[in-house]
C-alpha cells in the first residue's frame, strides 16, 4: 500500500516536475463531473502501483497517457457520452513533448517559488520541517531540540508538507499563498 522508497524516489524525480504541465493539459480537457485533482491523484495511484517502472523511457509521456486512460475510463462508465466526444481527449503529441527552453525557464522559476515557500511557513512549522528535512534530524530529535512533543512535530511536518504539495500542484506562488490563507481560514 505504501510505495517503496525506490518508487517514491522515481516519482519525485521523474513525475513531480511534470505535474504543472499535466494539470494544465487536463484543465484544457475539462470533462463534466471529473475534477483535475481527482485525475491527478488517480494518475499517481497508478504510477505508484505499477509492478516496475524501469522500462518507462519517458515518465512524462507515461503520466500523460495514464491520465488520458483514466479520463477515458470515466467517460465509458458515464455512458452518456457519444463515442466521438472522445476525440476531445485525444492526446496531442505536443502536449507530451519534452518542455521547450521557455517552459524550462518557467519551471525553474516555479521551483524557486517552492523554495521560497519554505521561508513563508509559520515559524514553528518551518523550524520543524527544516530540522527534519534539511538537517536530517529524526522527528524525535526535532522534538527534543524544539522542546515540544513528537506528535506536535509530526503535525508541523504534515502541515508544512501539505503547503508544499499545494505549491507543486500549481507551480506558482500566488496560488500557493492563497492556499496558505485558505488553510488558515479553515483551521
Amino acid at each position, binding site marked *: *500500500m505504501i510505495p517503496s522508497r525506490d518508487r517514491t524516489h522515481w516519482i519525485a524525480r521523474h513525475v513531480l516536475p511534470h505535474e504543472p504541465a499535466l494539470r494544465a493539459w487536463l484543465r484544457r480537457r475539462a470533462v463534466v463531473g471529473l475534477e483535475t485533482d481527482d485525475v491527478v*491523484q488517480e494518475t*499517481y*495511484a497508478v504510477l505508484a502501483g505499477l509492478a516496475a517502472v524501469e522500462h518507462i523511457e519517458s515518465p512524462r509521456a507515461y503520466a500523460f497517457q495514464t491520465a488520458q486512460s483514466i479520463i477515458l475510463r470515466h467517460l465509458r462508465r458515464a455512458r452518456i457520452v457519444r463515442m466521438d466526444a472522445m476525440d476531445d481527449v485525444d492526446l496531442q503529441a505536443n502536449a507530451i513533448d519534452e518542455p521547450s527552453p521557455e517552459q524550462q525557464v518557467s519551471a*525553474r522559476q516555479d521551483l524557486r517559488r517552492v523554495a521560497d515557500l519554505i521561508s513563508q511557513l509559520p515559524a514553528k512549522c*518551518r523550524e520543524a520541517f527544516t530540522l527534519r528535512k534539511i538537517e*536530517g*534530524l529524526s522527528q524525535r530529535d526535532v522534538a527534543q531540540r524544539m522542546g515540544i512533543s513528537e506528535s506536535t512535530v509530526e503535525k508541523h511536518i504534515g502541515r508544512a508538507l*501539505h503547503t508544499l504539495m499545494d505549491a507543486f500542484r500549481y507551480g506558482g506562488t500566488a496560488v500557493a499563498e492563497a492556499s496558505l490563507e485558505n488553510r488558515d481560514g479553515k483551521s
Partner: protein
Amino acid sequence: MALRETSQDIDIAAAQWAAQIDRGLSAEEQGQLDAWVSADVRRQGALARALAVLEHFDGPQIEAATHSERPWGGLGRRNFLAGGALAAGLGVAGVLLTGQLGRGREYTTAKGELRSIPLEDGSTMLLNTASRARVHFSRGRRDVTLLSGEALFDVAKDPARPFVVRSQALDVRAVGTSFSVSRLPGRPLQVLVREGFVDVNGTAAQAPPTTHLMAGCWATASEAGDVDVRHVGVPTVLRALAWRDGKLDLDGMTLAYAAQTFSRYSDQKIVIDSPAAGRLTVSGVFAARDPAAFAHAAAEQLNLKVRQEGRVIHLAT
C-alpha cells in the same frame, strides 16, 4: 449517501499520513493506514504524491546513505543552527571593501589537480582542477575570492564571522554550511548548495535583493548579478559535485559539453568532428582525468568512431 470526499481533504490527510510514516508507524497505525488507503484509489495516489514531495526536500541523509565517508570531515549536521535561527542570522549586513582582499593568501591548482585546503577556522576549501582562490580572514569576517575555476566550501560554524565567497559580481554568504562556487570561462557563475543555507548577493549597486538558497539549490548568476535559482534536490547537487572524488557524472549531458568539461581536467583534447554528434547526450560516471576512457565509452554508447592522434581524440559519426 455521504458526500464524496474532496481531493483537497484527501491531500490534507495524506500529508499527515506521510508525516506519520516519516516518524515510523506502529503495527496498529499501519493497520489504520491500510484501511484509510484502501477505501479510495485517490487516497493511494495522494499518499504516493505526498511521500514524493517530502522526498524532494531530502537533505543530507540521502548523502549519508550514498557516501559512507565524508572526505572533508568536520561538519556534522548537528553543528548547524536550527533552520529558523540560521535563516535569521544570515541577514547580517556587511560592506565588502575590495582593497582588503589584496592581502591574504593565494591558492592554486594545476590542471587535473584536486587539492583540499584546511583553513584556520576549521573550514575546508576543496579546489578543483585549474583553479585559483585567495583567502583573507580578519577578526570579523572570513573572505575568500574565487578568481577562477571551482571550489567546494565546507564552512565551520561561526555566527560572529560570516564566511563570504566573492566571485565576479556575486557574494555568497554562509554561517555554517557546504556549498560550491564555479567560475568557468564561457559559462555563468554557478553556486551549488550541498547542506544548510547560503545567501547570495550581487555586488553591483543596483543588484537585485538577497536570494536565499537552501540545500539542493542550483543557482546561476549573470555578470550583472541577476540570480536564477533552481531547486534540483540534494542528490543532483551531489552528482554535480562528483569532481570532489575525481569523477564526472554526466547525466544526460551533450557530448559537446562533456568534451569541453573534460578539457578542464587534462591536456588531452576530445574533438567532435560532426556537430550532430556533439548534440547527442551521454550518461555515466567517468574518471575526470581520463578523457580517452570516456571517449571510448561514449563511442560505444552512441555508436561513434573514435580515433586518437597524439593528444587529440577524435569522435565522428
